[in-house]
Each structure stands twice: as structure tokens, then as C-alpha cells.
């Protein structure tokens, strides 16, 4: 392998791995909180649409207005993520690690994952995550591969990154399943809110300080803020249950 091909392979692999981590984080997060069937179906649907786009557009893929897509998907993920974050904080504050149960203040009909019909919420979340991240991987492949005339090497490197990250995600999935649902809802809410903020603002055309590393900064900020709000909610719940416990 020539030096140029090696440089394309390493760059494409690393850049694609970053996008694949984001993709797997969303699919796994939706899988453990909403159910794997809907999450995998959504991911599969996203891959089918992605494959169709790649087949139709080919090297002209970069003509797709990624900014608008990032803005729309980011705004939706941000709204959904904030709703999950709010519910996760309230659940953990009210019921601790037991999560949802009778009398749960944050329990609503939409939280129920349907058993007798498709869970469209889980499907759409995974679908959007896979389609957007997959498109970004495709852009990376086309950009690096075609400009250096090493398209085949770029495709193989990106596919290797996707397979490796998906395998790691599958390997750690049994560990993730042991975490209570309320904590997972909060964690996935934090992830969706961080990615959503990043993509929506980037979709407008604003550059983040530190580029992709800003996602880690956003996540750290939101973890601190969620911890603060959790402490306030927890204190509120303790105060509101003391008189009831005394009167009982």
C-alpha cells in the first residue's frame, strides 16, 4: 500500500469511527430504553434509505444540503432529548434507582413501549441517527476517496470502522442492560440533547470551538446541569414526602 493510500485509509477510518460511535450510541441508547426491535428496525430503515441515496447520487452525494438536514434532525433530537432528560431527572428524584412505577410523576402514556404494535418513537429516533451519521460517513468517503483518487481504500476503511464500532457496541450491550431504565433515560437524554445541540447549531452554519470535540464539552456541561437540577428535585421530593410520612 502506497503512502498516499495509507494516509487516506487511516484518515477515513478515524473520521468514520467518530461518526460510527455517534450512530451506535443513539441506536444502543434507543434499544435499551425503548426496545431493540424498534431500534434495529429504525437503524435498518436508515441504512436502506442511505444505500438508496448513495446508489442514486454516487459521487454527487455532496450536493445534498447537509446543513439543512443537520438543522432539522438536530432540532428534533434536541427537543426529544430535553423531554427525556426532564423525565429522567424527575423519575430518579422521585423514585431513585427503582425508576418508573406506580405514582411515578413523570409517567405518561407515551412512555409505554407498545407490545402489540410497532414502537414508532424508537424507530424514528434510530432511523434519523443512522441516516444522518451514515450520510456523514458517505461524505467522508467521497471527499477523501475521490480527491486522492483512492475511493476503494476509503470505502474499505470506512466499512472497517463501522464494523469495529458496531462490534464494540454489541459487546458492551449486556452491561448496559443491567442499568435501571430511569438512569438510562437520563443518560440517553443527555446524549440526544448534546448531539442535538451540536448538529442544530452546526446546521445553521455556526462553527463550534474545538469542532467535533465540542460534543464532549456540551455533554460535560449538561451532566453538571442535570446533576444540579436533580439535587433540587430530590430535595423537593424529600420535603414533600416528610409530612405525608408523619401523618401516615
Amino acid at each position, binding site marked *: 500500500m502506497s503512502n498516499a493510500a495509507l494516509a487516506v485509509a487511516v484518515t477515513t477510518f478515524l473520521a468514520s469511527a467518530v461518526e460510527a460511535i455517534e450512530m451506535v450510541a443513539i441506536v444502543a441508547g434507543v434499544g435499551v430504553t425503548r426496545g431493540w426491535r424498534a431500534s434495529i428496525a429504525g437503524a435498518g430503515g436508515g441504512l436502506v434509505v442511505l444505500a438508496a441515496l448513495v446508489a442514486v447520487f454516487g459521487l454527487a452525494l455532496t450536493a445534498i444540503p447537509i446543513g439543512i438536514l443537520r*438543522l432539522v434532525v438536530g*432540532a*428534533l433530537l*434536541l*427537543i*426529544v432529548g*430535553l*423531554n427525556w*432528560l*426532564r*423525565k429522567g*431527572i*424527575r423519575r430518579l428524584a422521585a423514585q431513585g434507582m427503582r425508576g418508573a412505577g406506580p405514582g411515578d*410523576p*413523570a409517567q*405518561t402514556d*407515551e412512555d409505554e413501549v407498545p407490545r402489540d404494535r410497532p414502537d*414508532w*418513537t424508537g424507530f*424514528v429516533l434510530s432511523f434519523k441517527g443512522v441516516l444522518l451519521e451514515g450520510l456523514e460517513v458517505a461524505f467522508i468517503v467521497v471527499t477523501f476517496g475521490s480527491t486522492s483518487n483512492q475511493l476503494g481504500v476509503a470505502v474499505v476503511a470506512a466499512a472497517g470502522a463501522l464494523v469495529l464500532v458496531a462490534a464494540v457496541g454489541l459487546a458492551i450491550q449486556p452491561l448496559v442492560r443491567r442499568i435501571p431504565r430511569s438512569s438510562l433515560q437520563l443518560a440517553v437524554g443527555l446524549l440526544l*440533547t448534546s448531539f442535538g*445541540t451540536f448538529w*442544530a*447549531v452546526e446546521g*445553521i*452554519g*455556526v*462553527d*463550534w*470551538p474545538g469542532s467535533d470535540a*465540542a460534543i464532549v464539552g*456540551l455533554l460535560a*456541561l*449538561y451532566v453538571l*446541569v*442535570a446533576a444540579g*437540577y436533580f439535587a*433540587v*428535585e430530590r430535595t*423537593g421530593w424529600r420535603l*414533600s414526602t416528610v409530612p405525608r410520612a408523619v401523618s401516615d
Partner: protein
Amino acid sequence: MLSAISAFGRFWYRFIVGDDWSIAAAVLLGLAVTYVLHRRASSAWWLMPAVVVVVLGVSLYRARLDQRRSTRS
């Protein structure tokens, strides 16, 4: 047919807007202001994280008030 369309609309409303409409409204308003700031060549990346911090706190506060009201009644 009509019920299918209404169920489809309800799903998207619940999916996008969720429990608290003020979250969706604040996010859309925040993005609009970010766009305006960006067009005026001002630094705009900080606005949405600030909107997220404020709207989450307000939404939790509203939920706590609703909870108190429903407990009293």
C-alpha cells in the same frame, strides 16, 4: 382513513412536542435567534447551550408546580 390520519398526526405531535410544548417553542426560538446572530457575524455558538440550561430548569419547575396542584386537588 380519518382516524388513521388523526393517529398519525397525534404520533408526530407527541413525538416532536412531547409533554411540555414550551421546550419545543424555546428550542425553535433559540435556533431562530442563533441564526440572526450568525447572520450579523456575531459569535452565536453559546446561545443554544444557554437556552437548554434555562428551558430545562423552567420545564422542571413547571412540572413540579403541576404536580403540587394535582396533589392538592
